[in-house]
């Protein structure tokens, strides 16, 4: 049993924690504080660390900037488009891969590949797949008699194309998590249910799904946070642009453009904090729902 904390044990613990705290402090906590302060600078000299005036101007600018609204809307559509489908699909695939099927480990590797390959590299392949004249996707649609879709150049289709790409990219990681979750469910429950003549549908909803809930919950939190932070996929798929007419402009892309392309450091920081606030609130809500659910 551990002793009660005293000065000695606290000091000892602190020594153990120091390396991690130092790294986190320098690379995480300090930047968080700095960019929080930066978001309130309204008149400043960035390179020489001189601030002449503080205020809410940057947040007010965001409130009025149509580009920012577009980024918010696109990000929301992206999250709603990617997360549920990705979770449902990966759960389905995980259920299939969990069963003893031929070439199981081969398929597991195949599904995990998108996760380990570089976004930029696979985006090149997807750009070809989405190509309106020479692409695989339009070729397939053409066989079904569907007119070619200008996936990457039509402002109406750019975001759906991005969502498709992101779902595919996110599957592998989620499948692995679901497979781990599935292996935590004791086989005895299923055997008992079978004895009671429960069909596969019933077994899924009464055993697998409730027992898998903590995993599903975890996957959904991680997926939502990840989806809100989408950037690489946009950058790579549209070749360093936010898509035709900024139709795939996301929050992080907006922050990136403001910071690096337009040297608008304070507005970029303010936008970063808006993003932080949104993900924070959503996570708290999810946690609250999750806790209620787990308590049942």
């Amino acid at each position, binding site marked *: 049993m551990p002793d009660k904390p005293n000065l000695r044990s606290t000091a000892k613990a602190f020594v153990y924690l120091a390396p991690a705290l130092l790294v986190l402090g320098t690379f995480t906590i300090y*930047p968080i504080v700095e960019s929080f302060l930066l978001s309130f600078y309204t008149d400043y000299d960035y390179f020489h660390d001189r601030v002449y005036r503080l205020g809410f101007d940057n947040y007010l600018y965001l409130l009025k900037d149509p580009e920012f609204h577009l980024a918010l809307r696109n990000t929301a559509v992206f999250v709603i488009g990617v997360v549920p489908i990705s979770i449902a699909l990966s759960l389905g695939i995980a259920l299939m891969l969990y069963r003893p099927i031929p070439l199981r480990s081969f398929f597991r590797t195949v599904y995990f590949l998108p996760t380990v390959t570089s976004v930029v590299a696979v985006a090149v392949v997807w750009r070809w797949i989405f190509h309106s004249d020479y692409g695989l996707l339009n070729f397939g649609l053409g066989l079904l008699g569907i007119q070619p879709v200008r996936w990457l150049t039509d402002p109406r289709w750019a975001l759906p194309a991005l969502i498709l790409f992101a779902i595919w990219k996110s599957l592998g990681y989620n499948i692995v998590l679901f497979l781990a979750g599935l292996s935590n469910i004791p086989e005895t429950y299923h055997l008992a249910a079978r004895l009671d003549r429960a069909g596969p549908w019933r077994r899924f909803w009464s055993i697998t799904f409730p027992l898998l809930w*903590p995993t599903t919950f975890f996957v959904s939190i*991680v997926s939502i946070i990840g989806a809100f932070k989408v950037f690489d996929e946009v950058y790579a798929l549209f070749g360093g642009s936010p898509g035709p007419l900024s139709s795939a402009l996301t929050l992080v892309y907006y922050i990136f453009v403001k910071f690096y392309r*337009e040297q*608008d450091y304070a507005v970029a920081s303010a936008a970063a904090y808006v993003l*932080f606030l949104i993900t924070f609130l959503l*996570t708290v809500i999810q*946690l609250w729902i999750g806790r209620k659910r*787990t308590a049942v």
Partner: protein
Amino acid sequence: MIMIRRIRFVLALGLILVAAACGKPETTPPAPAGSDKSAPSSAADETDDAAFPTRLRGPVEITFWHAMTGHHEEALKAIADRFMAEHPDIRIKLVGQGNYGDLQEKLTAAAKSKTLPVMAQVIETWVTDYQQNGLVQDLTPYIEHPEIGWTKEELEDIIPVFREANRWDGRFFSLPFSKSTQILYYNTDLFQERGVEVPKTWDELRQAAEKLTFERNGKKVIGIGFENSVGWQFHMWVRQAGGRYIDEATGTVLFDSPEGRQALDFIAGLFKDKIARLAGEDQYMSNPFGRGDVAMYIGSSAGIPFVAKAAEGNIHWAAAAVPAGAKRAVPFAGNAVAVFDSATPEEKLAAWLFIKTLLNTDNTAYWARETGYLPIRRSALESPIWKDFVKDHPANGVGTEQFDAGFFDPRIPGFDAAMKIVQKEIEAVLLGEKAPGAALPDAAAKAQAEIDRAKARSRE
């Protein structure tokens, strides 16, 4: 429950990740190097021209950040190696930083953390910002120095449009290095087949595009192509129409004019009649042009190697000067070299000596031959290196015929933000989402707002 605890941990981790992403621009740690460099920089603040050393007292190493890769990088290294052989006391440390976007990001981060290199490849629009923040060294005292500087002839040998692009209120804060312009690329097979002459005016350009749009073996050929970044080219069309774009001195947006409208209507008309297309998902026009899907396009001369590569085995092509509207006007863009104020006087001297060599007649001709950029000196055009090269590569010589019609983009804060807006509005017109009559005033008003905002931000 264990799971809840685990979720809490994961949640905390997730939040940290989010926060880390938010704080990303700030993650560069304050570097210790700043402390030993800050002392000499205060000495360099003195305006006395004679204050800097003109002779090196010992070996110096200077870092040079650049955005050159592949063969470009090798050529740069060859110039640096030759320089070091002649100057055994100077070591040039070349550091490739990826593409220009990466380079700009790293320079921004380095300026903040006081770890700037001695010199770097820069784009002139960045230099305005650096200069206003006191980050770059004024090179004028070095240029004008009687012993180590350039003679008047050597300075005036630099092509005027390049010289002016690097001068702010009469002072040189950077010097032109790799320069490119817009040229007309055309598919000689298709031109011959359809009996089209190389267009020299807007009318001829339009007629050529009409004749060159046709179907062949079920494959559609489009007359003229535009890069996705067509908004950046708009300046040229406005000037060709006889209008003005953005006034550099006052930052006033001037393109919402009859001439601006004429320019936009001309391009929009090509798209409306389906005789023009954007590079779109092909990223750069060199790809569809090289496949023979597009008969001609106006693009950067820096794209010559890409066009050559894409065209190989597919099509035959050539290049010509950009057609003229009411006026001749062709943009010159590219990059320059600058020395940072944070360097020590000795390092600055070494950097200047290197720049002098880098930009001399032989090296600028060599650099142009190896990379496809334009020589920055008139004397280089007469050099055997360049003359022999252009004989075999006529496309590379096209840009030099346009020096007299050259202009450059205004180097004002907020220009990138303004261009983003112009790009978006023009894209909307070309995609048929917005009428030119609505897009032009919108673009002008929003661009003006961005420039005003940036101006207010950068005011000292």
